[in-house]
């Protein structure tokens, strides 16, 4: 897939129009994982709009987004940065052998109290 095709695909998957962004930065200002991210939520939107998908696909931030929807809630322009981050992460992990979490990674993480919801959420987010 060419870079352009990859960009169009991520835009389609995200269902959000990145051109509507007015660069106010409220999404990143509200993000609880801001300090964990190499590329910030507003930059995901901006880089995708510029077609710089290769940088996004290498980002470590895709593993830190909490899907808490705070960025989506605060956006005055109805852009959904979380959906862009998820579309980038899905693009990464849908490739053969690129899952961020494998079934065999899970047993060592399990403690007596860990809820199924946590394991299921992480596996759905990090594995395709």
């Amino acid at each position, binding site marked *: 897939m060419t870079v352009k095709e990859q960009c169009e695909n991520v835009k389609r998957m995200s*269902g959000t129009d990145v051109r509507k962004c007015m660069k106010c930065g409220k999404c990143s200002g509200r993000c609880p994982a801001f300090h964990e991210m190499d590329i910030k939520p507003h930059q995901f939107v901006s880089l995708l709009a510029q077609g710089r998908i290769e940088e996004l696909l290498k980002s470590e931030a895709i*593993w830190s987004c909490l899907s808490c929807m705070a960025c989506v809630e605060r956006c005055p322009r109805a852009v959904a940065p979380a959906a862009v981050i998820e579309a980038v992460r899905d693009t990464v992990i849908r490739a053969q052998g690129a899952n961020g979490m494998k079934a065999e990674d899970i047993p060592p993480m399990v403690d007596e109290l860990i809820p199924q*919801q946590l394991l299921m959420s992480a596996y759905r987010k990090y594995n395709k």
Partner: protein
Amino acid sequence: MKICYYPGCTLKTKSQALDQTARLAALALGVEMEEIENWQCCGAVYPMARDEIATKLSAVRALDYAKHNGGRLLTLCSACHNVIKRTNEDMRSDGEICSRANNYLQLEESYRGETEVLHYLEMLKTVVGFDNIAQKVVKPLNRKVGAYYGCLLLRPSGVMAFDNPENPTIIEDFIRALGGTPVIYPFRNECCGAYVGLKNPDLPKKQSERILRSAKEKGAEEVITACPLCLYNLNEKGSGILPVKYFTELLAEALGVKS
């Protein structure tokens, strides 16, 4: 009154307290929660990519069952509620997702988002009424309780339509009905760190400590939630700053039905 109920995987295992206290309290309030047949795990997280269809189907199956059995589906776990309600909105308003999901399922009659998804708290407020609950309280809480909303009940507010996403009041009204004093604190709608703990354990720890410290500084003696993952993060990663319980445990306590 009977209402279709979707319990979800965690309420059958690690969070039985949430399920059991909710059922007991509902019975005391005249509501029988009828568990739907053959429910499947909702997937715990709503798949945001528009081309994800198969991961939404278990929610659609549950919704379709409820459509033919009273038209309402009661949820209790915040994650199930979030996934099922958002999927329902897709089925109602997104023609492409709706037709692709129906192509998979081949139901006798296509499902188009007809079911009303109702969280247990919404059921208490709109079906039973907080005034009626207050009249049935036999053991008032008489303590200061912080409501922890987290993310899943509130956001995205356009779809969830649960409460004001920045300044919610439903759990505070619930606490008041039980004879407790609600404590408003700044981090009550902040994310607990969610599933990212399996990748980065520091994040839920930092978030949970901030949330509980914020509640304690405002005078809360305990915190309540509707989410098993929030409860786990807050209790296990929150350095024991405050005890955290399910909101239904306090309801069952106040109604005098706790086993």
